[in-house]
């Protein structure tokens, strides 16, 4: 009989998620928040903004005024807590598609984002000073790109950190692996922010991987891995800040897994009631990431009814303004099929454009 026991075992993948702000809105004893005062209020306002935009986008989509859209609902602490660990003036965000507040925090105008979801190619152009890559539909494809970006910025000594988002589903793609491994090898200043929201469309996290946690993959790439309550704004911010500091100080990449939950459908084309156990929702709704920040802010005297009303009004107006702006944009034409394909269009491309234009844009 063999005396051998494998050195690495499945249970080594488990860890206790870091928490700071408990679901009731009080602090975990002995933990001190890394976000406070104005910054904390700003973070919460961005969370509220995200929630409000989700609702607006849903209703616009139902009226045929918006495209297929993936709401952030339930994951606001995860996205905003992480984004607030960055310095938008020098750091970059590389998104998947469900991180609107992180993009806004970098300075992306809401209108750009909306144009994209309206199916307008011009939405893809972020202003030059906004440090973001376009949203990514090909799952995990953005990950090696983010590593290259971080590595390239570091090579030019540009004191920048790249935070790249992906979902629990995306971590199963080969690109996830190749990106993490490369990041370890070149010690890229990158933070992999895995939002584990429990689902990849209808596929539950347990079916996505047998790993006890996804953060457990970090040592396999020679990097640090962190597991955090993704519905806890303060915990996410602390863990993300720790990762950003590590990257900035030359300590290399970190794999952060935020344990959160997608409270809505996968997107506006999905119907989660087909696959989601009802007790799942019941368990997670009381852990809504907005509630606990709200309670905490109030308990600290940083939020009150008049302020709440003012913020909500401001948000509603900003969203309405953006809707008006994008709806007033003249629809794109056939030239927007051809613009920006290459710097100089080939003769064949020019001929194709001419031919389609001759058709008066008709098909």
């Amino acid at each position, binding site marked *: 009989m063999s005396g051998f026991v494998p050195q690495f075992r499945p249970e080594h993948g488990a860890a206790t998620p870091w928490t700071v702000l408990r679901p009731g809105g009080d602090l975990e004893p002995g933990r001190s928040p890394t976000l406070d005062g104005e910054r904390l209020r700003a973070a919460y306002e961005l969370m509220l903004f995200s929630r409000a935009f989700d609702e607006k986008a849903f209703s616009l989509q139902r009226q045929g005024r918006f495209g297929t859209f993936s709401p952030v609902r339930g994951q606001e602490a995860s996205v905003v807590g992480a984004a607030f660990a960055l310095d938008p003036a020098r750091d970059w965000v590389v998104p998947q598609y469900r991180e609107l507040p992180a993009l806004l925090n970098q300075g992306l105008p809401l209108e750009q984002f909306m144009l994209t979801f309206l199916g307008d190619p011009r939405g893809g152009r972020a202003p030059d000073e906004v440090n973001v890559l376009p949203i990514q*539909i*090909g799952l995990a494809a953005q990950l090696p790109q983010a590593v290259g970006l971080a590595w390239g910025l570091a090579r030019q000594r540009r004191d920048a950190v790249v935070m790249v988002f992906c979902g629990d589903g995306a971590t199963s793609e*080969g690109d996830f692996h190749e990106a993490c491994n490369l990041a370890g090898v070149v010690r890229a200043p990158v933070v992999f922010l895995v939002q584990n929201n429990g689902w990849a469309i209808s596929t539950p996290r347990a079916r996505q991987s047998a790993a006890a946690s996804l953060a457990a993959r970090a040592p396999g790439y020679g990097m640090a891995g962190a597991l955090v309550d993704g519905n806890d704004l303060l915990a996410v911010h602390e863990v993300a800040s720790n990762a950003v500091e590590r990257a900035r100080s030359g300590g290399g990449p970190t794999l952060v897994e935020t344990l959160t939950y997608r409270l809505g459908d996968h997107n506006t*084309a999905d119907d989660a009631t*087909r696959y989601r156990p009802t007790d799942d929702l019941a368990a997670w709704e009381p852990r809504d990431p907005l509630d606990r920040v709200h309670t905490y802010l109030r308990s600290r005297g940083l939020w009150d009814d008049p302020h709440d009303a003012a913020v909500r009004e401001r948000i509603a107006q900003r969203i309405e303004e953006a809707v008006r702006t994008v709806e007033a944009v003249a629809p794109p*034409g056939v030239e927007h099929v051809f613009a920006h*394909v290459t710097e100089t269009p080939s003769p064949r491309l020019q001929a194709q454009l001419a031919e389609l234009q001759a058709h008066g844009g008709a*098909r």
Partner: protein
Amino acid sequence: MTRRMTRMTMLEAINTTLRGELARDERTMVLGQDVGRLGGVFRATDGLLDEFGPERVVDMPLAEASIVGASIGLAAAGLVPIAELQFLGFAHQAFHQVGAQLARMRYRSQGRFPMPVVVRAPFGGGVRTPELHSEALEAQFVQSPGLDVVMPATAADAKGLLQTAVRSPDPVLFCEPLRGYRLVSGEVPDGDAPVPFGKLRVARAGADVTIVAWSAAVQVAEKAADLLAEEGIAATVLDLRTLVPLDEAGLVDAVASTGRCVVVHEAPLSAGFGAEVVATVAQGAFYSLEAPIARVGAPDTPYPPGRVEDLFVPGVERVVAAARETVKAA
């Protein structure tokens, strides 16, 4: 003997056929992202999990290469995997497992490991999907010797070609037109009605010009033929059904008989499969050709976002214009 028929959409035809094949042969299994509990993002596999259980209808992790790679191994183990890639656009993630692996395992093993694997993948424009969901990538898979490439256009063919695909001892890429899933419907024969690969379908006959198409472009060609008929131009419309194997003889004959040809496809023009059609016809029907063969394809640009996609995907008017010009040519 009259055959019983049922009217259904393409999607229903595919769902029914999968159910039938799972019932017929217990070696078959369905695997892919969200194919189980959800029944697929388009419901193509709706109900199969409940009927055949989780050993035979499997929700896979989100990793296309492993879906195809595992199918190769499942086939080597004696099973008959019917894999789904959620969209053909994400078949790129599995590209190295298709041409270099799945398609050549029979050759590599000199016949020991045939690969009775079907890879189903929806694709195609006009339905306002997000980026990378609509691309017509069929031509990229044609240069994978050993792989059949099947592109049904009708509900009946969705069934008949899928039955053939599942029962084929060789691997099949089975591309389903998104646009047709619910919009295209027709009479579908009950029971066994496999449609052979490599035999094109004459969707309509006409003496003046031959329009060649496959998948959702067939309906575009048929509508174009309607409009052309109003102008007194009688068009033959060919539905190639399978690009590999190609019905070379049927294609060449049908073009030779009119002397004029238009090829329509959703993919960008350059190096689209239309080029192969032209090359085949220009060789085989050279002496019957009375006008240059026209190709109507998308421009050589990325598939664009929803608000401009109708300017990109070839539509009826471009086909009519091309056919008209072809017929007028000396």
